[in-house]
Every structure is written in C-alpha cells, then in structure tokens.
C-alpha cells in the first residue's frame, strides 16, 4: 500500500498546490470526508469550507468554494472556483465571497418565490460561507439578509 498519493488543487486561473500527501480532509457537500491512499474512487461536489492536507512536507490548509473533488487511483484532484491557501485568506476576500453568496440568496428569493429548492441552496451556500469564516477566525461581516 502506498504511503502517499498525489494531491492537486487547481483553480481556473492557476494551479494552487501540487504535492504528495498522506491524507486530505475535503469539505464535501454532504459532510467532510478524509481521503487516504487507496480510497475508493469518488467524485463529490464541494461546499465552501477549509480543505486540510497532510503530507511528509507538513500540513497545509486551503479555503475552497464551488467545484468538485475527484479521488482516483493516482491521487486526488480538487477543482475549486476559488481557492486560496489559508495564509492568503484575508478578511477582504472573505467579505467579497460572502457578499456574492448573499446576493445570490437574495436573487434566488426574488426569482423563485414559490420554489424552495434554489432558495434553500443559496441559503445553505451562504451559511456554509459564514461557518467557514468562523472556522478560520475571520469574522463574517453581518450582511443584511
């Protein structure tokens, strides 16, 4: 059994990280999951959250939103629309992301008045985003909902 596997984190504009890891904790839509080498092949969508990678080179944390993770035989690739390493994450970036989510929520509320589906999705996105902010110790600005 291999001790490590390849882990890649890419955003549309660049490759954020590429390294050997022993375990990755992924914030998946249906709950966090930790993938280790020889995990069963899996594709899952992401919720906004903190991705935690552990390897011989140390531990790394990334903030990811929107996208999916593919756990395959060769390794794990995570494709996220926005991904920043934990250190790069600033209050400003978080505010921008939360603002976008809040706007989506409001749009959904006005566009789909009688369908709860999209509104709930947007609300979940927003609350996930807030929770992520709490988790990494940045105070989510109280947006007026």
């Amino acid at each position, binding site marked *: 059994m291999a001790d490590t596997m390849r882990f890649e984190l890419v955003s549309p*504009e660049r490759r954020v990280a590429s390294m050997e890891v022993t375990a990755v904790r992924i914030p998946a*839509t249906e709950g966090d999951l930790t993938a280790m080498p020889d995990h069963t092949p*899996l*594709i*899952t969508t992401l919720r906004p959250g903190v991705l935690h990678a552990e390897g011989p080179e140390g531990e790394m944390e990334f903030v990811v939103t929107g996208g999916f993770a*593919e756990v395959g035989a060769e390794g794990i690739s995570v*494709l996220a*629309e926005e991904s920043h390493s934990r250190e790069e994450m600033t209050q400003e970036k978080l505010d921008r992301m939360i603002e976008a989510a809040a706007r989506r929520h409001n749009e959904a509320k006005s566009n789909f008045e009688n369908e709860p589906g999209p509104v709930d999705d947007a609300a979940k996105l927003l609350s996930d985003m807030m929770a992520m902010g709490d988790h990494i110790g940045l105070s989510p600005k109280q947006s007026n909902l």
Partner: protein
Amino acid sequence: MPSLKDLKNRISSVKSTRKITKAMQMVAAAKLRRAQEAAENARPYAERFDAVMGQLAASVGDSETAPLLLRGTGKDDVHLLIVMTSEKGLCGGFNTNIVKKSVQRIKQSRQEGKEVKIITVGKKGRDVLRRTYADQMIDHVDHSDVKRVGYGDAQEIARNVLDRFDNGEFDRAFIYYGEFENVVTQHPREQQIVPATFGGDEGEAPADKTLYDYEPGEEQILADLLPRGVATQIFAALLENAASEQGARMSAMDNATRNAEEMVDDLNREYNRTRQAVITNELIEIISGAEAL
C-alpha cells in the same frame, strides 16, 4: 517632382510611424507572453474539468432526467452566437476572421429557418456585425477596462448566457474566438457550449474507465457542475482570444515596421537622387553663366 523639403518631411513622418509600430510590436510581445502564461496556467483546470464532465455525461447518458444544459431543450429553433473579438484594432485580420466565421453560421442558420441571436464580447466584432445584423444583436459585453481576463469576467458572461437559457431564449449556443497556434497563425474557432459538449467524450472511455462513487448522485453533481462548465469553457476561450489578439497584433506590427523600413529606404534614395539633380542643375547654371561672359 517633389522638392527636397517635401521628401525630407515624408522621410521623417515614415520614420516616426516606424517607431510607433515598432513600439507596439514590442508591447504586444510582452503582453503575449503574459497572455500565454495565463492560458497555460488555466489549462490543468480546464482539462480535468473536461475529463470529469465527459465521464459524468457519458454515465448519465440520455436519461430523461438529465439536466437541460446537457440534453438540450429538445428544440433547435433559436441559435445564440457569442462572438468574442478584441477591444482594439491594429491586429491584422484577427477580428475579421472571427467575424467571418460567425457570419457563416448566421447565414447557414437563417437559411435553415432558424432564429439567430448575437451577443458580442469586444468592441471590434460589435462594430462590424452591427452593420448587417443590428436586429439580431441582443447584448454586448464591454471588456475595454479589463486589463487581464479573470475568471470573474467569464463567470459574468456565463451567468448572462445561462439566465437567458433558463428563460428559454435560445436552444443552442456557440462561442467564437481565435485559437492561438503560434505568433503567426491564429485560427478562428467555433465551439458549441449549450447543449454542453466535452472533448474527452468518447475517446478512451471504455479502456481505462474507473468506476466512481458519486456523492451526491451523478445528476445532482452534473446539475451543479454544468453551469460551471460553461464558465470554464468561456474562460478558456477568452484566454485563447487574448493570446491570439496579441499574437496577431505582434505579427501585424512586425509587417508594418518592415514596410516602413522599406519605404524609408526608397524615400532616401529618391532624396539623394533629387539632391544630386539639384546640384548638377546649379553647376550647369554656373558654368553656362561663366561661358557667356
């Protein structure tokens, strides 16, 4: 015959033109390098995305419940064309070629009795298309203040397009952009984005297919990812377009510089000849004056 002074003026004006085109060429070269880098950096994401989407799409197949973005609306009446060109000119045939490609589709679609709608990105394409197809143009995306194309720009366009799709404004959508091959060659390209198409669809599918678990279900994942796929494809096209534009401008300006050089040479020769003629004339006058005495 132009006087010496005229020639001198012309030479200096051509020389300053040459300086300008030379400078533009160098600026384009620097921008091209950056644009190519950006395109390079975006490639891993686009490729992985494409591969996974291809897999998902293949496994969901033509099922009744597949998202409309994949399956299509079942009609083929309204075509939406998203024509991406540059904001600035002076880049040779770059814009013309892209517009030509889109006009082909417009003509064909109309011949088949379909309705055509056009969204333009970049001023140059809008200016040309507006002359003939003003009624078909439904929107324009202004990128004149965008220095470097970001994913956000692509997302904006994608949202615009997807909103229209949700409202049933069109059945099929194509994007037009310049594909960058190298500095001297760029190809105008047409790509269908709705219903979604993926590069790795059939290719090596059966050979090394891993069976994935999907969480949540395949169709939910697809529904979540398809809109992102549209944005990704638009983003890739925008980046290609930016690189192509700079490449086209670079070679156009290189040609212009070379032409100006040739012209300066010709004008210099003419100038020298005229100068000598003037001297000879003066000599003749002096000599014949002396002889008359």
